[in-house]
């Protein structure tokens, strides 16, 4: 029984440490540009929710396994005069239990997962009036085109990064963004973490992704698929406007500038 007590003592020491580690790991909802724990839109928030749905049971299992391990190590450690251990070969009921219990738990996770996969693969319908953005990846800048906003020659409003200067992705708040993602050279991956997960830009095909930005502000994003020499420079600035009106105003101004540049 002394072993048990010392095990409990160890566990009491360890649990706060674990909790502290977890809290520092998970409650970092700080306002950094690419923090996936600080979502500013529905998609990223749902994804964080699903992460927690899997993470918390995982944490519980981790604590249980580590706890059982620690207990066994302390309780059954070799001490002089110990009788030799009984030669136990197994236990069928236990085996079935620890096969079926995780199976049930994991299958329980499959439901919400599939639900969210389908929901997030569903492109916004025209009734939802999404903002269309064409995302083009190229070594090593992003190119964003807004086909709903065209200049007098019919060219779409376009934002391109130059050198290490990241491209700006301007978005209106609280409106579904329907992104069509493609690449003109190698594989890239479009990723604005605070709005939602990534989608690859693959030459020869168009991938679709939808996002919503609910909170005005400026966020980060960058290419997440290794794309060669300057992969680290392939960044973007995501700028969410205060309102649809301010976004429209920006778009008009930008189109005018684009026209002037074309004229020059």
């Amino acid at each position, binding site marked *: 029984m002394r072993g048990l007590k010392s095990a409990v003592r160890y566990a009491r020491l360890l649990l706060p440490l674990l909790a502290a580690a977890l809290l*520092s790991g998970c409650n*970092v909802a*700080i306002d*950094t*540009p690419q*923090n*996936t724990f600080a979502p500013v839109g529905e998609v990223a928030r749902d*994804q*964080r929710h*699903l*992460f927690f749905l*899997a993470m918390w049971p*995982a944490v519980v*299992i*981790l604590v249980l*396994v*580590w706890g059982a*391990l620690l207990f*066994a*190590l302390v309780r*059954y450690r*070799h001490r002089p005069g110990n009788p030799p*251990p*009984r*030669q*136990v*070969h*197994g*236990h069928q009921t*236990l085996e079935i239990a*620890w096969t079926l219990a*995780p*199976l049930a738990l*994991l299958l329980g*996770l*499959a439901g919400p*997962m599939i639900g*969210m996969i389908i929901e*997030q*693969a569903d492109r916004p319908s025209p009734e939802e009036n999404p903002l269309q953005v064409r995302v083009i990846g190229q070594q090593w800048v992003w190119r964003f085109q807004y086909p709903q906003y065209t200049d007098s020659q019919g060219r779409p409003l376009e934002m391109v990064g130059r050198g290490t200067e990241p491209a700006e992705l301007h978005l209106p708040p609280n409106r579904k963004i329907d992104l069509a993602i493609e690449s003109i*050279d*190698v*594989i890239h*991956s479009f990723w604005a*973490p*605070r709005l*939602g*997960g*990534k*989608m*690859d830009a693959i030459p*020869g*095909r168009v991938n679709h992704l939808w996002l919503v930005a609910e909170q005005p502000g400026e966020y980060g994003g960058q290419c*997440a698929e*290794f*794309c*060669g*020499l300057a*992969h*680290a420079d392939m960044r973007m600035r995501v700028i969410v406007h205060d309102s649809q009106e301010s976004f429209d105003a920006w778009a008009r101004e930008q189109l005018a500038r684009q026209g002037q540049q074309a004229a020059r």
Partner: protein
Amino acid sequence: MAQTTFDGSPVGVLEALRQLRRQAASYQGIWSWIATVDHKRIGIMYGITAFLFFLAGGVEALAIRLQLARPGAQVLDQEVYNQMFTMHGTTMIFLVVMPLSAAFFNLIVPLQIGARDVAFPRLNAFSYWTFLMGGIFLYSSIFFGGAPNGGWFGYAPLTEKAFNPGHGIDFWALGLQILGISSLASGFNFIVTILNMRAPGMSLLRMPVFTWMTLVTSFLIIFAMPVLAVGLFELSFDRLFGANFFNPLKGGTPLLWQHLFWLFGHPEVYILILPAMGIVSEVLPTFARKPLFGYPFVVFSGIAIAFMSFGVWVHHMYTTGLGPVANSAFGVSTILIAVPTGVKIFNWLGTLWGGDIRFKTPLLFALGFITMFVVGGLTGVTHSMVPSDYQQQDTYYVVAHFHQVLFGGAIFALFAGIYYWFPKFTGKLLDERLGQLHFWLMLIGFNVTFQPMMILGLLGMPRRIQTYPTGMGWDLWNMIATVGAFLIALSVLVFIINVIITARRGQRAGADPWDGRTLEWSIPSPVPPYNFARIPLVRARDDFWHQKYREDEAGRPIPVVAGGAHQEHEEEHAQHIHMPSPSFFPLIAAMGFPIIAYGFVLADYALVAAGAVVLLFGIYGWALEPASE
């Protein structure tokens, strides 16, 4: 040295080889190592070579960590950085963990099944030399304009000629082909060895778990490697002969590469981890002095994992836009592969439970494996959840996850194996105090390095970026990770010191220093060339344990008088054992591969032909010489 006359003619070459071969049979001198077909010597050469590559891969990791320690650093420029992480990944997977596992297959499996050698001793030597040639070929790319820089996964079209005109990727693709030949040869060899060379009474369900996992891993190798070979051929044909497999302009799809690569790549993960699980399943029972809990469940969960590993590859491709049906199906299959993995962990706990646990270094590393691997497995569950993985794919969260599995898992278990079996092959025990220091430094260093990466990933840091600006919230965690990497390096240094000190004045180990359970402990340390003077007759699982102990009514072991390792009269008996002769032809045949590969890289087809001649000379010499004389 005997006089070896050599007049340069083919007949002269053959005669010289024949003379050298007779010398090599003496088990003395360098030639006896080069020509060896002894599974133990081949295992030792595998181990030493893989450890040297481990140091190379480690130095690459340190260089990466130095570059990433602070934002905006310029320790390595972009090109060198890309080469570093490509070589780090390729080295650690193909030149470290796989061959270290192969070292243990070679050293342990024949002893555990009561055999005198593997089924095909010369093929075994061929596997080793081909591995060495592949490794040297891959690293020689440094002298031909730079190492490969496309990542260990080599995604097309970035690795196509149009975007990567140097020779690096050619070295990578052909180097992996050579290493694949080595793995395939050892895969066939060990399946046949395990199925066919078992001592009388060693039924399949009496085999030690390490041998079982070797069998399962070998099957994975022979079914996964050919898929990679086809992918690599397609890439090489694109690059060298202008084919269009991954060229979108001609209608090719880069996703084909990803499907082929990950159809190989996910079984590969289990090729790396199953041998480690086998080692842990040997170490735990020995130091808990109890049989493995739930032996059949541990074995069958290993088989289940192997089958399932061919059905989860798309989880590397969740963000490629394959659509909700594929993502859902592979999401569920990926979730389910956690079940057999969990079964193994619970059975290891059951093994320790109620034991009489002695905390020797091998056990510490095995425990390190369990604690860290559980974290790796559970983080794996979090990103098997498809939409959650949309955020984590290609971030440091994934880097942290697979290092939990492959370092916290495989490397820890391999070190457990090194400390456990070192006395068997050297006759000396590694120093226990230095071993414990090695373990704790490595465990702490490991956690300081990789747990911050988990946070980095969740804070949005992608993989494979050469640098990052400040203000992302990543600075502190990156600095901590770099400090941890140097702690790991320090722990490896302690290990090297331990080996040197032990070699000089290590404690002598008897045949059975740990009170082991399996047949390898029943024979002298170091193991004589013929392994078993008398082929054992196996009557039970953990047969050697049952020779030493019988059980009382309560199931507690009672020592059997005069049980245990018996060495009297064995030398006399052993004089009549006839072992296969050494051979140089495996080495010669293996030398053909890099020559052919250089020929293709440099578009010098005379060199290709020359390499083919060397290869054929080796194969014909091999086929025509008697296996023993």
